[in-house]
C-alpha cells in the first residue's frame, strides 16, 4: 500500500510535468477549466482543430497512448505511468473527448485482433489524432441485447458485402474509421454468428445521418450500410468470433469510460461554498446540504481509489474485469443527482441555462440535460447491475427467451 511515487515514478512525473508545462496550450486553460459535461467551448476556436493539434504534439514527443507499444505509436508505458500522465495532463485531457472511443476501445481491439500490417499503418495515425475512430455496435434491435444485432455481412469471393443499420454511433460524422460488428450466420444461436471488421467511414455505401439528442446537441448518428464491400483483410478475428472480439472492446470501454470518471463532487462543492440560503447561511454550512455533499464526496473518492486499485491489478498482469463496471454506474447517477440538487438550490433561477446568466456558466443545467445519457451509453445501469450480479457475484443469469435458439428463430416484437 503506497500512494506515493517511487523514485522512478517521481522522475517520470517530473518529466511529464515539465513537458506539459513547456508545451500545453495554456491559452485554452480558462475555457478547459470551465468545461462542462458533454462538450467544450473554446471561446470561438474550433475544438476539433485544437484537440488534434494537442494530440499531434503529444504524439510527436512520445506522450500519446502511453500504454500502447512503441511500434504502434505508443510509449510502452506501464499502467501506473499512464495514471501519472493523466494526473499531470489534468484539465487538458478535456480536449481529447473525441479520441476516447478510438484510443480506449477501437485501438485495443484492432491491436488484439487486427492483421499486423493494418496495425502498423493505422494505429500510429490513431494515436497521433490524425484519424478518429468510431464504434459501430448498437442497432435499433441490438442495444443492451447487442448480440441481437441484424446488420448482415455476406461473403462474396474475397470480399464481404454489408447491409443494415447502426444507431447511436458517437462521432461517426467526424470519424475516418470505425469498427463494426455484423451477423454472418443467422442459423446459429445469436452470439455464435457474429463477425467483426474495421472500415473507412467513406467506403462507398456508408451513409451517416446525425441524430439530434435530447439535450439539443448532435454527438451520435445513424449509420446505414448499403451493399458496402469490404476485403476479407479488414476482418477482426475469426469468422463467427465477433462476440469474443467485441468483448475486448467492451472490456476496454468499461476501463476507459468508467475508471477515472468523476462523480461530479468538486463542482457541487465549489457551488455550495458560495451560495447563500434563504436563512442567510452558506449552503455549505447547512446540515442537510452537508449530508448530501458527504455522500457524493465519498463516492468521488471511492471511485478514484477503486480506479487506482484496478490499475494496480493491471500492473500485476490481470485483465480489466467486470468489477470495473461500478465506475460508470456510480458516476452516472451521481452526476444526475448533483445536477438536480444544484438546480434546486438555485431556486427559480435554476431553470435558466444561458451560460452568461446561470451560475457556474450553466454547468449544472448542461449536466442535467446530458447525464441521462451517461446512465445509458456503454451499458445501461440495469445491464451493469446484471454484470456485477452475474459475473462478479456469481448469481444465475436472467431467464432468457432466446437461449440456444438459432438467431432467425428468435421471437421479435
Amino acid at each position: 500500500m503506497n500512494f506515493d511515487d517511487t523514485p522512478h515514478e517521481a522522475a517520470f512525473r517530473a518529466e511529464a510535468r515539465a513537458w506539459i508545462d513547456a508545451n500545453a496550450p495554456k491559452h485554452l486553460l480558462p475555457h478547459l477549466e470551465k468545461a462542462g459535461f458533454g462538450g467544450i467551448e473554446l471561446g470561438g476556436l474550433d475544438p476539433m482543430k485544437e484537440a488534434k493539434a494537442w494530440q499531434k504534439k503529444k504524439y510527436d514527443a512520445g506522450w500519446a497512448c502511453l500504454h500502447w507499444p512503441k511500434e504502434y505509436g505508443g510509449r510502452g508505458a506501464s499502467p501506473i505511468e499512464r495514471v501519472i500522465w493523466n494526473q499531470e495532463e489534468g484539465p487538458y485531457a478535456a480536449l481529447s473527448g473525441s479520441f476516447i472511443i478510438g484510443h480506449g476501445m477501437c485501438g485495443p481491439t484492432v491491436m488484439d485482433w487486427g492483421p499486423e500490417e493494418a496495425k502498423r499503418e493505422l494505429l500510429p495515425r490513431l494515436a497521433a489524432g490524425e484519424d478518429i475512430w468510431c464504434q459501430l455496435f448498437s442497432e435499433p434491435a441490438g442495444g443492451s441485447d447487442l448480440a441481437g444485432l441484424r446488420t448482415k455481412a455476406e461473403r462474396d469471393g474475397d470480399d464481404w458485402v454489408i447491409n443494415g443499420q447502426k444507431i447511436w454511433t458517437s462521432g461517426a460524422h467526424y470519424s475516418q474509421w470505425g469498427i463494426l460488428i455484423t451477423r454472418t450466420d443467422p442459423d446459429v444461436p445469436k452470439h455464435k454468428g457474429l463477425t467483426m471488421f474495421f472500415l473507412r467511414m467513406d467506403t462507398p455505401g456508408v451513409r451517416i445521418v446525425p441524430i439530434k439528442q435530447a439535450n439539443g446537441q448532435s454527438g451520435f448518428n445513424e449509420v446505414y450500410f448499403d451493399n458496402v464491400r469490404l476485403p476479407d483483410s479488414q476482418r477482426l478475428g475469426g469468422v463467427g468470433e465477433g462476440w469474443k472480439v467485441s468483448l475486448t472492446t467492451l472490456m476496454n470501454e468499461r476501463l476507459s469510460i468508467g475508471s477515472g470518471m468523476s462523480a461530479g463532487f468538486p463542482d457541487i462543492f465549489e457551488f455550495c461554498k458560495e451560495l447563500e440560503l434563504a436563512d442567510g447561511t452558506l449552503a455549505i454550512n447547512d446540515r442537510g446540504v452537508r449530508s448530501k455533499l458527504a455522500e457524493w464526496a465519498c463516492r468521488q473518492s471511492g471511485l478514484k481509489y477503486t480506479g487506482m486499485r484496478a490499475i494496480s491489478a493491471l500492473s500485476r498482469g490481470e485483465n480489466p474485469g467486470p468489477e470495473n463496471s461500478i465506475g460508470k454506474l456510480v458516476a452516472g447517477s451521481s452526476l444526475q443527482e448533483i445536477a438536480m440538487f444544484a438546480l434546486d438550490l438555485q431556486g427559480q433561477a435554476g431553470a435558466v441555462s444561458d451560460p452568461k446568466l446561470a451560475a457556474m456558466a450553466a454547468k449544472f443545467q448542461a449536466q442535467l440535460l446530458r447525464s441521462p445519457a451517461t446512465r445509458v451509453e456503454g451499458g445501461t445501469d440495469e445491464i451493469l447491475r446484471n454484470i456485477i450480479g452475474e459475473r462478479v457475484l456469481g448469481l444465475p443469469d436472467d431467464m432468457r427467451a432466446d437461449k440456444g435458439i438459432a438467431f432467425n428463430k428468435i421471437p421479435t416484437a
Partner: protein
Amino acid sequence: MDFEFSAEQQQLKEQARRYLADKCPTTAVRAILEGSDPFDRALWQGLGEMGFLGAAIPEEYGGLGLGYLELCVIAEELGRALAPVPVSSSIFLVAEILKAAGSEEQKQRWLPKLASGEVIGTLASVEATGSVRPSNVALSAKAGTLTGAKSPVLDGDIADIAIVLARHAPGKDAQGLSLYLVDLNQSGIERTVLDTIDPSRSQAKIAFKDAAAELVGAAGDGWRLYEEALDRAAILTGFEQIGGADKALEMGRDYALQRFAFGRAIGSFQAIKHMLADMYVSATLARSNGYFGAYALSTGSADLAEAAATMRVSSTKAFQHCAKNNIQVHGGMGFTWAMDCHLYYRRSNLLAVSLGGLNEWEDKLIDRLRAKNAA
C-alpha cells in the same frame, strides 16, 4: 504507487481469517449475545497470544511492532467474524491514545498488558444523548480525582482501565478538557451494565466518585487528543465495518443462490440481483476509501483527518446497507433469531454510532475538505 496490501499483509489476513473461523464461528458470537458472559474470554486471550492485539504496538512495549496496515487487515477479519471482544476499545482507542500521548511510564506500564490482553482498556467520553462536544462534557477532574458519570461506555463493564474525557476547568470550552487514565478496579467506581441493540458487545454506565486519576497528555489537550484518537479509530473500525459488509453481502449472495421461489433461485430475480449488486458497489467504494485511509494512517499523512472522515462515512453506510439488505434477501427467515442476519444488522448499527454518528462525521468531512481547499 501500489494500491494493494502486500503479500505478507494478505498472508496475515488469511491467517487471521483461519484463526477466527476456528475460534470465533457465529455460534461463539451467539454465546455472548445470549449468555451471561460479557465477552469471549478465550478468544480474547488467544488474540493476545497470537500477537494480533499488539500488531501495531512497538516491540519495546510488548507488541509485534508491525504497523497499522497489519492492524487494518486484522480489524477487517475481526469485523467479518463479529468477534465479541473489546478490541476497538482496548487497542484502537486506549492503546492508540497511550502511544500518542502517554508518558514513558504510562506506556511501559500499560501497553504490554494491553498487547497481551491481560488488561482491557476503554474510552469514556459520552455523558448525554447527542454528539459529544466540549459543552456537554461535565465530568469534573479535581486534584487527581474524577467525579461524575459516563454512559454509555463500550466495554465499560469489563474494562480494567479507562481513559476519560473530563473537565479540569469550569466552563464549556475545549481548553478546559483533559484526558485522564483511571484504574476501574477501585472503590470510587460504580458500573451498571446497559441493555443495548447489540449485546455481543457489552456497554455500561460508569459512575466516578472521587476516583483516583492521572493525566494523559498535557492538561487542556484533551479535546484535541480525543478527536485525533477518533480519527485513527475511525479507520481501524472502518476495516471492521468493511469486513462485516463483505460478509453480509456474501450471506445474501449465498442465500439467493440456494433459495428457490417461483421455480427459480431468487438470485435470478433482478430485484434481488440488483439489490446485491448495489451492496457490492457500496462495499467496494468503502473498501477503496479504506485503502486510502489505511495508507494515510500508516504514513501519518497530512490527509489523515480527511481520509478518516471519508472512510467513516463510507464504511458506516456500506455495512448498514449490506446488513439490512441481507435480511431483506432472506425474507421471513432473515427476521428469525436463529439466522445470523440480525447479528450483522445489530453490529452494523452499533458501529455506526460507536464513534459518533454519521451526521457528526459528515460534518467533519465537509469541514476538512473545506480546510484543505482553503489551504
